[in-house]
C-alpha cells in the first residue's frame, strides 16, 4: 500500500488584487491505509490541497509523491468523490457510472460489470444497478459516487466534503457506511470536511488547517476504538479539542459559537 508524501507544497492564486496565497509550505506524510481528515474554516485551502493531491492543480513549489512517484496530473492510483451530486453522468445507469473507470482502464465488459456489481453491493445499492441517477436520492447518488471511485481499485481515495449537502440523518448513515467500506477495503483516505464530529467519527488522524495563508495548524491523532460512539465522553473530548484549535485557527472568536 501507499504512503503519501507531501513536502513543502505552496500555491498562490492570481486575483485582480494581486497574488493571494492559497496554501503555504505544507508538509505531511500519510501512512498506508490511514484515514486522514482535513478540517478547517472555509478558505483555509483544504480543498486546494486535495485538488493538488488529485492532480487538478499543480503546486508552485514543493511536490507531492504517492508511493514514491511524483504527482503529475490525474491518475488511476487515486479515486475522487466530490460534494456535488451532479458528478454522476446522468446518461449512464448506476452500474454504467461505476463501470466508467474500468472502461477507461480497458477491462473487458463482463469483468467490469462483475466488479461494478461488487462495488455497488459494498455501498448497499446492488438493487439499483440499472437505475439512472435522477431516480436516486442524494445519499444514494453519493454512494454510487463512492463505488465509482473505488471500482478501478485506486490505492488512495480523495473525498471533498462528500456528505456536506445531505441532511443530518442521511449524513450519519453515510458516515457509518463509509467507515464500514473503509474497514473492508483498507484504502488510504484523505477526507476534507468542515464538520468536526464527522472528522472525529471517521479519522485516524485529523489535520486542522488555518487560513491566510493556508497552513496545517495542528496534526491530531484520534485513537478511539472503532466503531466509535459519538455520545461517549472521549468522543466529545476529542471534538472539544478540535473545536478549540479551530477557534484559534479562525482567529479566536469561534469558541463560544461552538459551545
Amino acid at each position: 500500500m501507499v504512503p503519501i508524501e507531501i513536502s513543502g507544497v505552496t500555491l498562490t492564486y492570481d486575483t485582480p488584487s494581486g497574488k493571494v496565497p492559497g496554501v503555504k509550505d505544507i508538509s505531511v506524510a500519510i501512512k498506508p491505509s490511514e484515514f486522514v481528515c482535513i478540517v478547517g474554516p472555509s478558505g483555509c485551502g483544504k480543498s486546494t490541497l486535495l485538488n493538488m493531491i488529485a492532480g487538478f492543480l499543480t503546486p508552485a513549489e514543493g511536490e507531492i509523491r504517492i508511493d514514491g512517484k511524483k504527482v503529475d496530473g490525474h491518475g488511476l492510483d487515486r479515486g475522487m468523490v466530490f460534494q456535488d451530486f451532479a458528478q454522476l453522468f446522468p446518461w449512464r445507469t448506476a452500474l454504467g457510472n461505476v463501470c466508467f473507470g474500468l472502461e477507461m482502464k480497458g477491462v473487458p465488459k463482463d469483468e467490469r460489470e462483475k466488479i461494478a456489481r461488487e462495488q455497488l453491493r459494498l455501498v448497499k445499492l446492488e438493487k439499483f444497478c440499472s437505475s439512472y441517477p435522477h431516480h436516486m436520492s442524494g445519499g444514494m447518488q453519493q454512494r454510487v459516487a463512492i463505488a465509482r471511485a473505488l471500482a478501478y481499485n485506486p490505492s488512495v481515495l480523495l473525498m471533498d466534503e462528500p456528505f456536506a449537502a445531505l441532511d443530518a440523518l442521511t449524513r450519519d448513515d453515510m458516515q457509518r457506511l463509509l467507515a464500514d467500506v473503509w474497514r473492508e477495503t483498507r484504502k488510504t483516505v484523505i477526507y476534507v470536511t468542515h464538520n468536526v464530529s464527522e472528522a472525529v467519527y471517521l479519522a485516524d488522524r485529523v489535520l486542522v488547517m488555518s487560513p491566510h495563508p493556508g497552513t496545517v495548524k495542528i496534526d491530531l491523532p484520534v485513537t478511539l476504538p472503532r466503531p466509535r460512539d459519538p455520545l461517549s465522553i472521549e468522543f466529545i473530548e476529542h471534538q472539544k479539542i478540535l473545536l478549540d484549535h479551530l477557534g484559534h485557527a479562525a482567529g479566536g472568536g469561534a469558541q463560544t459559537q461552538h459551545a
Partner: protein
Amino acid sequence: MSDAAAVVGRPDARVGRQTWRTAWRNTFPFLVVAALWEIVAWLGVFPRQLFPPIEDIAARFVSLTASGILEHHTVDTVLRLLAGFGLAAVFGVAIGVAMGRSRRAEDILLPLISIVAPIPGLAYAPLFLLWFGLGNLPSILLVGFVSAFPVIFNSWTGVKAVKEIWLRSAQAMGADDRRLFRQVILPGALPYILTGLRLGLAQAWRILIAVEMLAAVPWGLGWLIFGARKFLDTDAMMSGIVIIALLGLALEKFVFKKIEDYTVVRWGMVK
C-alpha cells in the same frame, strides 16, 4: 358478490368516461369551426370556387389520394426535407461542436455566423435560385443552409454547458481526450443538440414549403398549393394544406419525441 363486482367495475367505467370526455372535448372545437365553415360556404357569401364546402374538399382529397397524385407530391417533399435537413444536421452538429471545443474555431466562425444568421432564411431564396438555377439543388441547399443555424447555435451552447464536474470525474478516472469527447461531452451536450435538431427541422419544414413555391420544382406540396392558385383550385389547395399540417404535427410529435424519450428524458436531463 354483485356489490364487489360493482365496486371493481366502477373505476373502470369512470376511466372509460374520462377518455371519452377528453376525446369529445378535443373534437368539439373542430366541429364548431367546421359547422361555421359549412354555413358560410352554403350561404354563398363567397364564390363556391374560392370557399368550397368541406365535402368538396374531402371529395377532392380522396380523389387526389386515389390517383396517387397527393402521395407523389408528399414523397417528393419529404425526400427534399430529409436531404436538406440531413445536410444541416451533419454540418451543423460538426460546426457547433467544433466551436464549443476550440476557442479558435469559435473566434473565427462566430462573427461570420452572427452576420449571416439573423437574416430571414427565405430572403436568401432568390440568391440561391440565381446561383444554382431552378429545381432540387437550390431547394435542398437552401433548406440545409437555413436549418443549420439553430443546430449550430444549440450544439455550440450545449458543448459549452457540459458540467465541469463531469469532465473532472472522467479525468480522475483516466479518460483521455478522445474518450472524454465521446463518452462525456457528446452525451452531456445531447439535450441541447436535440433541441437544435428539433428547431432546425421545424425551420427546414417551413422553408421547404416556401421554396417549393419559388423554385419551380415539378412535384412537391408547396408547388401543389401554389400551382392550384392559378386554376382557382381551392379544393386541391386545402388538401395540400391538410397534408402539410399533418406532416408538421407528425414530425414534432413522433420523430423527436421518441428520440428524446429514449435519451435525455430517460436520463432525467430534461423534464
